[in-house]
């Protein structure tokens, strides 16, 4: 058994303290880069750094080996300061093959370190990456400090005592790379050793091989003359408390579980597997002891309809999907809306249209969630801004849904869903309860009026099983009050307007928008997963003396009640979005403001410098 202390001695080389580091690990999708990245993230968080990650992988489970299409990457920034993005330029890039090198090198800073597995630059590897020349020899890597490491052969040598086949031995090379990176940044190997024990508990020889590979990588760093020193990143000054790492989809699932608990409800999820939303289904399925029922439906439509059925029965009902699935759910969501039942619809956005870019991020479903249903059918829409924010968003969405008797749409995206960051663990006893009541007697003399409204225009949530409150709901227009089918023209106008007004009323209930930065000059309005890049860019610009303020929208429908007033204080408005300008169009139409778009549609999140450049281009 290898223990952390004697087998992984602290370095004897000098250590340079830096405030933050951005590392990207890139290799074949079978090379275990996501695993390596997750370990580096967790370890860095455990050592007190603030962390932000950006996993980036192909849509194919095993894309052709060694090709550019098969490259899988994981970027992590760990820092002694509070950070909001996984970083722009890379301080270090680890490349397991030529395809990874050629597709990622452009993001490495000129001062950055390039670490390559030199064993995988044979003629056949170059051919797979469609390279005529070896980039290690043709000058491509000239500008960078490059460290060529024969990872494959050294890993084989290191794991030899276990007697593993060459094929299995080669699978351990990500642990060799991990050992080297951990050594370089003075990371603690203990959590990873624990991870190996747990993950490979049924395969002790594989566990041992991985430990040996990890150790070989660590010792290589210490012995090779290529590295004169290591780097250390001190702990960040986060507010006191107990922290853990969370990923967006996990935080969303936990937020939903929490919302159910504090509203005294049992949770029902109707869902159909789809990237990048499936992890919410997986996570919720694990927690049946919280009274969670998960239904993997036959299709997206059945998923949303089952949720409506569960909502009718009194559960906290949820359906999760991504863009293509939300498109299919439109009619079912519309029924939830006209039935005026509370439920949550989650859209973890990905690149579109159609199947689009399943594993890449985008913000291009806003118009669809706002307007993508037949009839005048507005619904409250809320967007998470970071992985940990997903937790709070889930609770807030259920608060609104149950108070106003309305389906609420939560927007997330692939970047948030798979990204990780430290999360200060909340005290469960401090959550404000969500009060939900169900009537048990008639509300109009001896009659029960299922559409009699309260001050929030919400109707009573009367549950099947309650004597004397029998009523029928349906998709046909209904008379206000009685809920009976009605084709009366004035009633229809009244009902459409009432359902719209109910959504507007949400603005009175939720927090107004807050401005960060300057209160005049240029205003940046952002929403969803671009928060981190925008926030960091505004701080950078303010530090340079540029007059720019920032409003990040949590609710997209309704907009915050003070947004119009805020916009008036500024000369210019810039709306950065990962789409062709969807929020920008809505803002223009609603506030008659000349909002300028900063639009990126590459399946990748914004870099901070892209926003900074966008601000500089229009701000004086």
């Amino acid at each position, binding site marked *: 058994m290898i223990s952390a202390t004697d087998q992984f001695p602290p370095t004897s080389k000098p250590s340079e303290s830096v405030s933050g580091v951005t590392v990207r690990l890139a290799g074949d999708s079978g090379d275990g880069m996501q695993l390596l990245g997750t370990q580096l993230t967790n370890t860095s968080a455990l050592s007190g750094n603030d962390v932000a990650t950006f996993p980036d992988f192909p849509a194919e489970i095993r894309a052709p080996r060694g090709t550019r299409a098969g490259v899988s990457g994981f970027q992590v920034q760990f820092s002694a300061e509070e950070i909001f993005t996984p970083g722009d330029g890379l301080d270090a890039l680890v490349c397991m093959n030529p395809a990874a090198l050629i597709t990622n090198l452009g993001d490495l800073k000129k001062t950055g370190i390039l670490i390559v597995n030199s064993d995988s630059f044979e003629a056949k590897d170059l051919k797979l990456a469609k390279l005529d020349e070896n980039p290690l020899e043709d000058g491509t890597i000239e500008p960078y400090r490059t460290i060529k490491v024969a990872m494959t052969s050294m890993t084989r040598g290191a794991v030899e005592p276990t007697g593993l086949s060459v094929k299995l031995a080669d699978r351990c090379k990500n642990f060799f790379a991990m050992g080297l990176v951990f050594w370089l940044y003075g990371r603690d190997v203990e959590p990873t050793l624990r991870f190996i024990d747990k993950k490979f508990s049924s395969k002790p020889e594989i566990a041992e091989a991985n430990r040996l590979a990890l150790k070989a990588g660590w010792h290589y760093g210490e012995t090779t003359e290529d590295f004169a020193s290591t780097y250390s990143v001190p702990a960040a000054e986060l507010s006191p408390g107990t922290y853990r790492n969370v990923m967006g989809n996990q935080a969303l699932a936990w937020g939903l579980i929490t919302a159910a608990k504090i509203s005294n409800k049992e949770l029902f999820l109707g869902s159909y597997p789809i990237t990048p939303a499936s992890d919410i289904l997986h996570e919720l399925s694990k927690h049946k002891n919280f009274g969670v029922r998960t239904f993997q439906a036959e299709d997206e*439509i059945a998923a949303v309809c089952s949720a409506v059925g569960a909502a*009718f029965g009194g559960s906290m009902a949820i359906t999760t999907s991504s863009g293509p699935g939300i498109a299919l759910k439109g009619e079912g969501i519309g029924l939830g809306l006209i039935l005026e039942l509370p439920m949550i619809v989650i859209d973890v956005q990905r690149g579109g249209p159609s199947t689009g870019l399943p594993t890449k991020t985008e913000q291009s479903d806003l118009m669809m969630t706002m307007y993508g249903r037949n009839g005048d059918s507005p619904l409250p829409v809320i967007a998470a801004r970071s992985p940990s924010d997903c937790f709070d968003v889930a609770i807030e969405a259920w608060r609104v849904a149950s108070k106003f008797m309305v389906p609420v749409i939560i927007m997330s995206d692939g970047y948030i869903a798979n990204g990780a960051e430290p999360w200060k663990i909340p005290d469960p006893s401090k959550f404000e309860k969500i009060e939900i009541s169900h009537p048990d007697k008639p509300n109009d003399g001896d009659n029960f009026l299922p559409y009699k409204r309260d001050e929030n225009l919400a109707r009573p949530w009367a549950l099947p*099983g309650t004597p004397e409150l029998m009523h029928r709901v349906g998709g046909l227009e209904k008379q206000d009050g009685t809920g009976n089918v009605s084709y009366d023209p004035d009633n229809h106008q009244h009902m459409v307007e009432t359902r719209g007004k109910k959504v507007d009323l949400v603005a009175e209930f939720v927090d107004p928008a807050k401005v960060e930065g300057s209160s005049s000059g240029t205003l940046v309005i952002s929403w969803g997963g671009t928060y981190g890049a925008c926030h960091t860019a505004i701080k950078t610009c303010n530090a340079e003396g540029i007059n720019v303020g920032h409003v990040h929208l949590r609710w997209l429908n309704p907009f915050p009640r003070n947004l119009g007033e805020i916009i008036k204080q500024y000369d210019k408005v810039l709306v950065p979005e990962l789409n062709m300008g969807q929020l920008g169009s809505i803002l223009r139409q609603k506030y008659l403001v000349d909002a300028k778009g900063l639009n990126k549609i590459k399946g990748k999140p914004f870099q901070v410098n892209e926003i900074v450049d966008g601000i500089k281009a229009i701000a004086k």
Partner: protein
Amino acid sequence: MSTELPVLKPADFASDQDVRWCPGCGDYSILAQMKKVLAETGKTRENTVFISGIGCSSRFPYYMNTYGMHSIHGRAPAFATGLKSTRPELDVWVITGDGDALSIGGNHFMHILRRNLDVNIILFNNAIYGLTKGQYSPTSKVGTVTKSTPRGSIDHPLNPISVAIAAEASFVARSIDTNIKHLVKTMIRASEHKGTSFIEVYQNCNVFNDGTWDYAKNKATKEEATLVLEHGKPMVFAKGTKGIRLNGFMPEVVDLEKVAQDDLLFHDEKADNSQLAFLLSRMRYPEFPEPIGVFRAVERPSYDQMINQQVTDARADKGDGDLAKLFGAGDTWSVK
């Protein structure tokens, strides 16, 4: 004061809404028999829920003084799945039609049957689209001339009973809107079955497809055209003059003056495999009498029972969910 619960009469299950089907429509009879069935089986209004899709038959929930949902086209099984999975104590009925269940809702129909959710599905089969004013449906015969098929329909129809059996349904039956006694009996059997029970009802649309089931209803032909299935009994029809015998893998009609009853095919609705039920579902008039009654009734755990059992088991194994434990599981660190 009496401690006995008030016994409800069929009329107690009627809502205050005017029934708006065309006069003479077969739906009226099914509605009337349903009220009888609920009263006879001692059901309460508050614990009964009707869920329908879209179509003439799907207006059904509005006419019942129970809980109800008139949902969207073809999806009633999915709404029922969400409701019954979370409220297994409710008595849930799905009302659907041939277009609703077999065309737009074909997928959900198949999946609710294989899952064996404990609900009762009644498919009003009139072999036409009534509410959209008379287009052919997935059960219309080839050559049906309608507004959308002026030269006759060209697609081969589906047989609802065969589809249900192929989809692993645990209870499959057929009845006829005007055969009141049989319909009531069949619905009671369906109601008593644990798991999804499916009944195809031959229903006359007197406006757009009048008389399509006449052969099975008219005095002159019905004895020859239908065969009443009874578990454990030989398959006899035409007032006891004819029977069905198996010849190799194929059924054949035989004259009972020449063949002994013991040589006939005997019905076994509880058979483990569905071959007999499927064979019966393929018998179509005029070559054969069309069976009515219960084709198949087998026991299998229901979806709603199992989904709730998993929650109970998880709570027994891990204890009731504790948020602090959930958040604190795995690696954490403290900042002072």
